[in-house]
């Protein structure tokens, strides 16, 4: 494995561990940390074994982790924008690690692209959070639609995983 690939994988793994360790565990929010932890384990295993689908699985785990923690009466830590920032950095570095295994990747370009994308996404999240502050999504219909969407997405992830493993 090239040096860029190793460093990117290490950076991605460290950021993922940091994200999960910073999540609160009080009042049942430990379940969120558990889901995130599974995501980290799969990401690290995927980076070691060359399974790129682990990036998708870890991203999903981190988003679900945010969902679980934000549904409980605990303060979300790290804040939402930091979550977005870390998720994008993890995805960018992990992707760069896989790319660098096959060909040359400019390390400066990797860092610039990762930081740029992360800052833009976290900024967007923060702006939207300020706009939507105080709003709630309640009701049976809304939840039913959400569960249906979840089933569809889980199916899609399973399909993607199979394709990438084939």
């Amino acid at each position, binding site marked *: 494995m090239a040096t860029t690939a190793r460093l990117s994988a290490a950076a991605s793994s460290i950021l993922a561990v940091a994200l999960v360790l910073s999540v609160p565990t009080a009042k049942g929010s430990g379940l969120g940390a558990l889901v995130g932890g599974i995501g980290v384990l799969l990401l690290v295993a995927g980076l070691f074994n060359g399974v*790129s*689908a682990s*990036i*998708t699985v*870890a*991203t*999903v785990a*981190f*988003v*679900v982790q*945010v*969902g*679980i923690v*934000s*549904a409980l009466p605990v303060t*979300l830590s790290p804040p*939402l924008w930091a*979550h*977005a920032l870390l*998720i*994008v950095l993890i*995805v*960018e570095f*992990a*992707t760069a690690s*896989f*790319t660098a295994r096959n*060909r*040359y990747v*400019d390390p400066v*370009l990797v860092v610039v*692209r990762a930081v740029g*994308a992360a800052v*833009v*996404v*976290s900024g*967007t*999240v923060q702006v*939207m*959070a300020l706009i*939507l502050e105080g*709003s*709630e*999504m*309640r009701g049976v219909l*809304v*939840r039913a*639609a*959400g*569960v249906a*969407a*979840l089933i*569809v*997405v889980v199916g*899609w*992830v399973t399909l*993607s995983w199979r394709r*990438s493993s084939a």
Partner: protein
Amino acid sequence: MTAIPTPRLRAYVTGGLVGLGVALAVGDPGPALIGSALLALAVVGLTGRITPTMSARLDQIPSPMVEGGEYRMGLHLESDQPLGPLYVEFGIEEMDVVSTEGGRLVGASTVVVASIERAADVAIRVSPKGWGRRDQSSVTIYADSLLGMFEFRHVRSESGHVVVLPEESFLRRLLSPLETNLHVGELVSNKRGSGSEFADLRPYQHGDDPRSINWRVSSRARSLWVNERHPERNGDVVLLVDAQMESGTNTDFVVDRSVRMAAALLRAHARHRHRLGLVTLDGSCRWIYPGMGESHRRRTLEQLMSVAPGKVIWDAAEKAVARAAKRPAMVIALTSLLDPNLGGLMHSMRRSGIDVTVIEMDVDPALPPPADQARSLGRRVWIMERERLRDRLASEGIPITVWRSGEPADVPIARLEQWRTSWRRRLG
């Protein structure tokens, strides 16, 4: 170019959709905010999916090359839209890119071209390592789409092959064939004819060229005498390269030395306008009849460079040798003499009147020291058997010498030339 989605696109799209779903399921906008931001990033990245059309042409490929040398090649790139940066990977087997013009060299074989508008030219200098016949390189060009959501890839496979010759070892001495052929060359033939080298005198016969009359001798003898001369001819040289290897032995360096010596001999004999033939004894025994000219020389070198060490089928080997090595050719065998069958082959060639010479490749460096007394005794017996084989070949009039490791290529040639000269004197 082919567009291949990167793992980040799948992660952003999936993560975004899951975020929206989870938000609806738990009734909190938090995951939806992250999900929508990730989806937005993916959508922006998807807009850069327009796959460019690209062509790449590698030209000015020199062949043959010599190992360790530096050669310039040109790469012409064309694209229907501006791209950058481009990563150009030269998949040249056992060849390093040493320097480049029009790009930045990273690693052993990748050149980064900062950007390309419509067309760009990149020049590279390559240095081949080791000899051999290699497939012509493939050139792979990579580029990233907007935000890196897709990887554009273009693979240009070149047909044909490149021949890399061993580093030139200059031979100051050469073995001269005992017999010559009918073509005009640099060797003094032992036959009589028109030439410049004086051979003998004989009485004038009707039809002799008056210019060949030796007037000084004729005036003393009071009858006409003419000079006889040796014509200048060239010789046929057939190289027999033994590339057989026993599986499980570490003797591939012997084949490497044989090929290096053969290449040096081919070059040197070609300079002296000898007709050159080649028999390679490897997994597939192949031969080339003695011939001259640039295309023949190229073909001979290509066969030599494509030698693949392997087990020899002796029936095929004998047929190959019988076809290529015929009188008046001089056969120079480059062998490790590990297989006694080769001794038999030399013997049968000598019996049929062919001028055979053997340069034996030293195998001692490949042998591990004997571990115990029994092995030591076995080694001594083996060495004695090899000595006996050499003595037998020498007694049959086959000059043989061992080319020791570290010796220049001239040394065994000088020893053989000395042997052949004294032998020629003995024969008169």
